[in-house]
C-alpha cells in the first residue's frame, strides 16, 4: 500500500503539487490524469524521490520513503517512462539486468530473470537478448523498457506516460499487455497520463489532477456518473461518455441467463464492443461465452443500453 500524505512541492513561489493525499491499494492500477502542468508527473516523481518533496511524506507498506538513501529506495521501485529511456550502449539483456546487477544478484539468477521477462513480453530471448535498442521497433523498445522496470521484482511500478510515443494500434496492445502483466505479478502500478481513455481503460482508480490538486480520486465509473468538480465533468463529459461507461463493464459481468440469437462474444469483451457487434450484425442479443468456451448467458441491446445510462 502506498500512502501519500499532504505531499507538496514548491519551486520558489510556484506550488506545483499542493498538499495531495492519496491511498493506493496494493495490487491495483492507479492512474493520475491531468493536463500538462497539472503536477501529475511531479507527484509521481516524488514517490521515488526523483523530486524531493517540499512537505508531506510518502509511506510504502508503512515505511517512510525518506528513511533511506534515494538511490536505494529507487532500486525497490520500478520506473518506466515515455520514450523508454533505454541505454543505447547496452544490449537488451544488459538493459533489463540493470537493477538486478545494482542489487548484486548472482549472474545465473540475473540471466534467468532476463530470459523470463523477455518471454513474458513476447520477445524471443535468443533473438533479442543481444540486440541494441536502436535495432528494435518502437513497440519492442517500450516493452523492454517495462521489462527493465520490472526486472528486480518490485512491488511498485511507476510509469510516466509510458505509451505516449506509440501509435494507436501498438499502444492498445501495450495497454492490454500491461494489464496482463499486472495480473501475473500482482504489481501495484501508478501511471501518469494525459489521455482520459487510457486512464479509463487501465485504472482501477483514477486521480484527476489540476493546478497541483487532486480534484477527484475514484473508480472510473464514478468520475463519469458523479463528477465531483466542474473540471472533472469537463474532462469526462465528452460526447461519448455513455460509450466510455459501457467500456468499463465486461460482457460476463452484465450477462443474463439464456442464449442470444446474434453473434457470440467473449466474456471479457466490454459492453461497448458487444454493442458495436450487435449494431454491426443487426441482431438483438448476443451470446456471451464463458472462459470454458461454452455459452454462459446472453446480452440484449436494451440491457446494454441500461448500463450506459446515468444512474
Amino acid at each position, binding site marked *: 500500500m502506498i500512502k501519500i500524505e499532504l505531499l507538496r512541492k514548491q519551486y520558489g513561489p510556484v506550488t506545483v503539487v499542493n498538499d495531495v493525499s492519496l491511498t493506493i491499494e496494493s495490487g491495483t492500477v492507479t492512474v493520475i490524469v491531468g493536463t500538462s502542468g497539472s503536477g501529475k508527473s511531479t507527484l509521481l516523481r516524488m514517490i*521515488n524521490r*526523483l523530486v524531493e518533496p517540499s512537505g508531506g511524506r510518502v509511506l510504502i507498506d508503512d515505511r517512510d520513503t525518506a528513511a533511506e538513501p534515494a*538511490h*536505494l*529506495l*529507487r*532500486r*525497490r521501485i520500478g*520506473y*518506466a*517512462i*515515455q*520514450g*523508454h*529511456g*533505454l*541505454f*543505447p*550502449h547496452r544490449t537488451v539483456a544488459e538493459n533489463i539486468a*540493470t*537493477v538486478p546487477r*545494482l542489487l548484486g544478484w548472482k549472474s545465473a539468477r540475473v540471466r534467468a530473470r532476463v530470459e523470463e521477462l523477455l518471454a513474458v513480453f513476447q520477445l524471443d530471448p535468443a533473438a533479442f537478448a543481444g540486440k*541494441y535498442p*536502436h535495432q528494435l521497433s518502437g513497440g519492442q523498445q517500450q516493452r523492454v*523498457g517495462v521489462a*527493465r*522496470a520490472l526486472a528486480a521484482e518490485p512491488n511498485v511500478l*511507476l510509469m510516466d506516460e509510458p505509451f505516449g510515443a506509440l501509435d494507436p494500434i501498438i499502444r492498445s496492445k501495450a495497454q492490454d499487455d500491461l494489464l496482463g502483466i499486472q495480473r501475473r505479478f500482482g504489481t501495484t502500478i501508478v501511471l501518469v497520463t494525459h489521455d482520459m481513455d487510457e486512464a479509463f481503460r487501465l485504472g482501477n482508480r483514477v486521480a484527476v489532477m489540476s493546478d497541483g490538486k487532486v480534484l477527484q480520486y475514484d473508480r472510473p465509473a464514478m468520475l463519469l456518473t458523479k463528477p465531483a468538480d466542474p473540471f472533472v465533468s469537463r474532462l469526462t463529459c465528452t460526447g461519448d461518455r455513455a460509450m466510455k461507461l459501457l467500456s468499463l463493464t465486461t460482457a460476463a459481468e452484465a450477462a443474463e441467463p439464456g442464449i442470444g440469437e446474434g453473434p457470440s462474444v467473449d466474456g471479457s469483451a466490454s459492453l461497448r464492443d458487444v454493442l458495436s457487434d450487435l449494431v454491426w450484425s443487426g441482431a438483438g442479443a448476443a451470446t456471451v461465452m464463458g472462459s470454458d468456451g461454452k455459452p454462459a448467458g446472453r446480452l440484449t441491446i436494451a440491457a446494454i443500453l441500461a448500463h450506459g445510462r446515468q444512474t
Partner: protein
Amino acid sequence: MTHAATRRLHFDRLGTLLSLVGVAAIWLLPFVVFKINRIVSGHPRALIDVLPQWSTLTFYSTLALIAVIAVAVGNARIRLVAALLGIVAVALVIGGAADALTPPGNRWVRISPGAGFWVLLIALGLIATDAIARLRPRPGVRVLALLVTAVAVAAALASGYFDHLSIMREYAVNASRFTREARQHVLLAVGSLVAAVLVGLPLGVLCHRLPRIRAVILEVLSLIQTIPSIALFGILMVPLGVLAAREPWVAQLGISGIGAAPAVIALFLYSLLPVVANTVAGLARVSPATVDAARGMGLTNWQVLVAIEFILALPVILTGIRIVLVQNIGLVTIAALIGGGGFGTFVFQGLGQTAIDLVLLGAIPTVALAFSSAVLLDALVDVMNKALR
C-alpha cells in the same frame, strides 16, 4: 560513341586538376636543386642531365600513366595503387638524383628536393588521400595502413638510399639531438593534453550541470584562444620569471620564465577550450530520458555520470582530444622560441642560418606526427561511435 562506352569512360575533375598541377610542376619547377654548401642558394638541375636517360624516361612515362589513371579511371583501388606507385617513383628518383649529384667523399654539397618535387608529392598524396576516402576503409584498416606506411618510410630512410639527400645530411649531423627533441616535442604536446583533460573534463561536467557558469567559462576559454601563441608565451614569461626568482624551490623544479614551463602552461590553456566545449557538447547530446531512467532505476549520481553520460559523450569528447593533440603538436614548434625544445628548435635554428634543409628537418616530422595522431584518434572516434550508436 555508344551508350555503354559513355558510361564506362570516367572523367575525374579532381584527378584532372591534380594532373595539370603535376605537369606544370615538372615543366616549370626544378625537381632537384644543387648547392655547393648548406647555406648558399642552389642551382636547379634538370633530371635528364642528372640521371641515366632510361630512368628519366621511365619516370616521366610512369607519371604520364598515373595522370591518365587519375583523369580517366574511376576505380578507387586502381587510383590508390597508381598514386602510391607515383610516390615511390618520386622518392626513388630524388634519392637517385642526390646520389648521382654528390661527388664521392664530398660532405659539403647539399642536394635538396626542389619545388617540383614537393608539388608532385603533394599532388600524388592528394590523389591517394582522395582514393582512400572513396574506399571508406574501416578504422582498423586505416590504423594498419598508417603502421605499414610508417614502417616502410622508416625502412627506406634506414636503408641509406636517401643518405645523400640534404635533409638526411642535416639529420646525420643532428642525429642525437633529433631523438632528444622528438621526445621533448611529444612530451610537451601530450603532457599539456593530459593536463588539459584532467582539468577540462571536470570543468566540462561542471558547465553541463550549472548552465549559469557555462557561458562564463566558455567565454574566458575562447578569449584565451584568441591570444596569439607568441604573445601568450610573453605574458607567461613575466610571472613565471618573478616566481622563480622569489621562490627558490620553484626554480629548483626547473620552472623559469623561459623553457618548458611557460610552453606547457600556454599549450594547456589553449587545450582547455576544445576539451571543455566538447565535454559540454557530448554530455548535452545524451538523451534526458536516458539519464532520467538511469536515476529512476537507482543508479547513484556518480554511476549515472560515469557509466551512462560519460560513456555516451565519449565520441564527442575524443573528437575534442583529437583537435587538441593535433593543435598541440603544431603549437609546440613555436615553444622552441622560448627554449621549450621540440622540433621547433630545428625550424628556428634553420631560419636563423637560412638553412632551409634544417627547417625541413623540424617541419616534416612535425607534420608526420600531427597527421599520424589525427589518423589514430579519428579511428578511435569511429570505433566509439559505432559501439555507442
